[in-house]
């Protein structure tokens, strides 16, 4: 037991948990925490908007697999975090957010900068805590980290009233190690594993869907082992991108609304589908009752509530993906020899060549071509983040990813403005690799002010702005489904992104040809300062393939 104030107890606990960096903005209600942090080795990265603090913590978490931490003051500081927290929630990312709160005696009185952040974030957090006593801090914070990172990860918010930060108390820092947190059994049920193996062994056209859960549970190797034994094609969801190296002959790329022809066609022909760590989002399945109506579906997920939520499955396996795949592999390899599927392999190869042909289009500055070029210029372990919209889908379809945790995108919530601050978080986690944000002009402008953070904090990243002066994906929908009635999508030719970058002390390039792009990009990824590359593209460009909203995958538009 040590007599210490709440703020210092918090910082001490964070140090004990191994926290190295906090993204955030101070304010009246977290001043005491800041004061305590001033004496700590934990790095504070001052963002220019709380939303960016949350996204950066999320990017840090996704790139590293460790809990990302952000902090904001009460009221508007806390509410500004909400979009970032909701983004992390939808994509199961372990983020812990600390917010200041008005003193206990003022709670409920509409005090200055008071917001009910517990109530507000209840539906977008895995759990949240209001700290009532300074002595509770170590245990609550350890619990928050445990909840955020265990099972299906997700964000947790801890709200600390100002007077609790000031209050001195006898604090027991060993409380956490004495408490046993609720543990779930993550091992698969042997009977379900057996049923899955029977189906897979007998399957003529098995197919695997790899979701974000494969990456979270670090199960890429196990997935590949099962895929190669079965010679089953592997499609990924957006969150699963990177679960299998996309230059692998069995990797068919993205599945769903903007899925590749290979993934979307093969999934419809499959007789057994092994879905791992995916929640069958509507963007992945298309119209749900047209999704693999004749296939038997095996669903592995650590969250029991995901099984049967969107799609009825034949074999439910509630388990950690890694453990489940290990068990499946063990039984399967005892049962079958490695399959040969030469026709299938030829087919996948043909689909992939068609896609590459598409990317190698004549006009040089088309986005698919740029994606291929970016991949060529980057090392395998470089990290790519994306904004949301056309830029994201071009990257998802055409930019091949070879390693888990190297593709970071807002999948579930689809948060424009996510990619840039997330790239800062990823770069902080992995300063040794280049980090590139694939952006659109519409998205980048939503969080562009954090160029200031990247410059002041020396976090150099590269932002490639696919600049079509329009909210591209919205315009695409208006073009395809609203008779080209463009409305409220035109962004004009402002700002000048080169000047904008320079105004922040960053580096800006505008390129007109592929050669210019390559040369600028090479400079950018080696630069010690953040670089924004403005790439003017046509506003008429569509992201294809596309399955119209509400339609089954077979209605894919390709030309």
């Amino acid at each position, binding site marked *: 037991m040590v007599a210490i104030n709440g703020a210092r107890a918090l910082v001490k606990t964070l140090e004990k948990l191994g926290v190295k960096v906090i993204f955030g903005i101070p304010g009246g209600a977290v001043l005491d925490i800041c004061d305590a942090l001033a004496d700590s080795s934990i790095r504070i990265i001052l963002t220019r908007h709380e939303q960016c603090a949350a996204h950066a913590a999320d990017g840090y978490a996704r790139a590293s697999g460790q809990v990302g931490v952000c902090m904001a003051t009460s009221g508007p500081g806390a509410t500004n975090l909400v979009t970032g927290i909701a983004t992390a929630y939808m994509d199961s990312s372990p983020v812990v957010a600390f917010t200041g709160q008005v003193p206990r005696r003022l709670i409920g009185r509409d005090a200055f900068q008071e917001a009910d952040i517990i109530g507000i974030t209840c539906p977008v957090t*895995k*759990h949240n805590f209001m700290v009532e006593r300074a002595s509770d801090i170590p245990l609550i914070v350890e619990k928050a980290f445990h909840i955020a990172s265990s099972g299906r990860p997700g964000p947790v918010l801890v709200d600390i009233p100002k007077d609790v930060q000031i209050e001195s108390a006898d604090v027991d820092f060993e409380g956490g190690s004495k408490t046993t947190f609720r543990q779930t059994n993550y091992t698969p049920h042997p009977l379900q594993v057996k049923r899955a193996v029977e189906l897979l062994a007998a399957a003529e056209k098995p197919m695997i869907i790899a979701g974000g859960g494969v990456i979270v549970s670090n199960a890429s190797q196990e997935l590949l082992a099962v895929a190669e034994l079965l010679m089953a094609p592997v499609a990924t969801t957006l969150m699963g991108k990177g679960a299998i190296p996309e230059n692998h002959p069995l990797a068919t790329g993205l599945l769903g609304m903007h899925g590749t022809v290979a993934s979307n066609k093969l999934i419809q022909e499959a007789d057994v589908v092994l879905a791992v760590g995916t929640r069958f989002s509507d963007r992945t399945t298309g119209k749900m*009752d047209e999704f693999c109506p004749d296939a038997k579906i095996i669903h592995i997920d650590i*969250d029991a509530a995901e099984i*049967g*939520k969107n*799609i*009825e499955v034949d074999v439910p396996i509630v388990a950690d993906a890694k453990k489940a795949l290990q068990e499946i592999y063990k039984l399967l390899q005892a049962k079958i020899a490695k399959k040969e599927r030469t026709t299938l392999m030829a087919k996948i190869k043909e689909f992939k060549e068609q896609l590459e042909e598409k990317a190698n289009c004549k006009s040089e500055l088309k986005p698919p071509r740029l994606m291929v070029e970016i991949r060529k210029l980057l090392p395998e372990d470089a990290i790519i983040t994306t904004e949301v919209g056309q830029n994201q889908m071009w990257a998802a379809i055409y930019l091949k990813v070879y390693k888990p945790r190297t593709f970071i995108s807002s999948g579930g919530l689809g948060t424009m403005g996510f990619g840039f601050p997330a790239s800062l978080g990823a770069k902080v986690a992995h300063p040794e690799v280049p980090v590139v944000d694939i952006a659109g002009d519409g998205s980048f402008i939503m969080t562009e002010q954090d160029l200031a953070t990247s410059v002041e904090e020396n976090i150099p990243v590269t932002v490639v702005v696919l600049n079509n002066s329009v909210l591209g994906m919205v315009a695409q929908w208006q073009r395809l489904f609203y008779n080209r009635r463009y409305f409220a999508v035109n962004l004009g030719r402002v700002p000048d992104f080169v000047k904008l970058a320079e105004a922040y002390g960053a580096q800006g390039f505008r390129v007109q040809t592929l050669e210019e792009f390559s040369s600028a990009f090479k400079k950018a990824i080696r630069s010690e300062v953040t670089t924004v590359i403005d790439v003017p593209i046509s506003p008429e460009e569509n992201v294809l393939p596309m399955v119209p909203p509400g339609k089954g995958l077979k209605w894919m538009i390709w030309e």
Partner: protein
Amino acid sequence: MESKNNTIQQEYIVSAIVEHRPGVLFRVSNLFRRRGFNIQSISVGPTEKKELARITITVGGDEKLVEQIVKQLRKLVEVVKVSILNPKNTVIRELALVKVTAPDYRAKTDIVNYAEIFKGRVVDVSHKSLTVEVTGDPDKIDAFINIVKPYGIKEIARTGITALPRGESQTV
């Protein structure tokens, strides 16, 4: 949700043991609202353990829906245990206070008689009304309300049901 055969609509009783602390009821009801589950009745009260409370919820829906409700509830950190109670093997009780218009001696006598038949009690009386307390399963309470309706019902307060499995089985 796509369903093959479990689409029979009926009423389910969900019994949840939760940590007894502020905010838990909010989390539970907020979950129902967010996921679009409709609460027909909800009752909350302490249990034999002072740190735990029991929330009894009735919902209408099919088997798939109630399964999803249970799974989602189990994800809440402060929810300790969730079960679906089978009505055939469960003691189900609800309490109702029914204030009935009774301007004269005749009406008062009738209502007192009905209350007796339903094993209810008159808990308040005034010149123009009687308040009757009835306990039982919801059907019994419906039946009582129906029988006194012709006299004119001024107000009703029902607790919503609370329930426990019969015999040795325990929900915690």
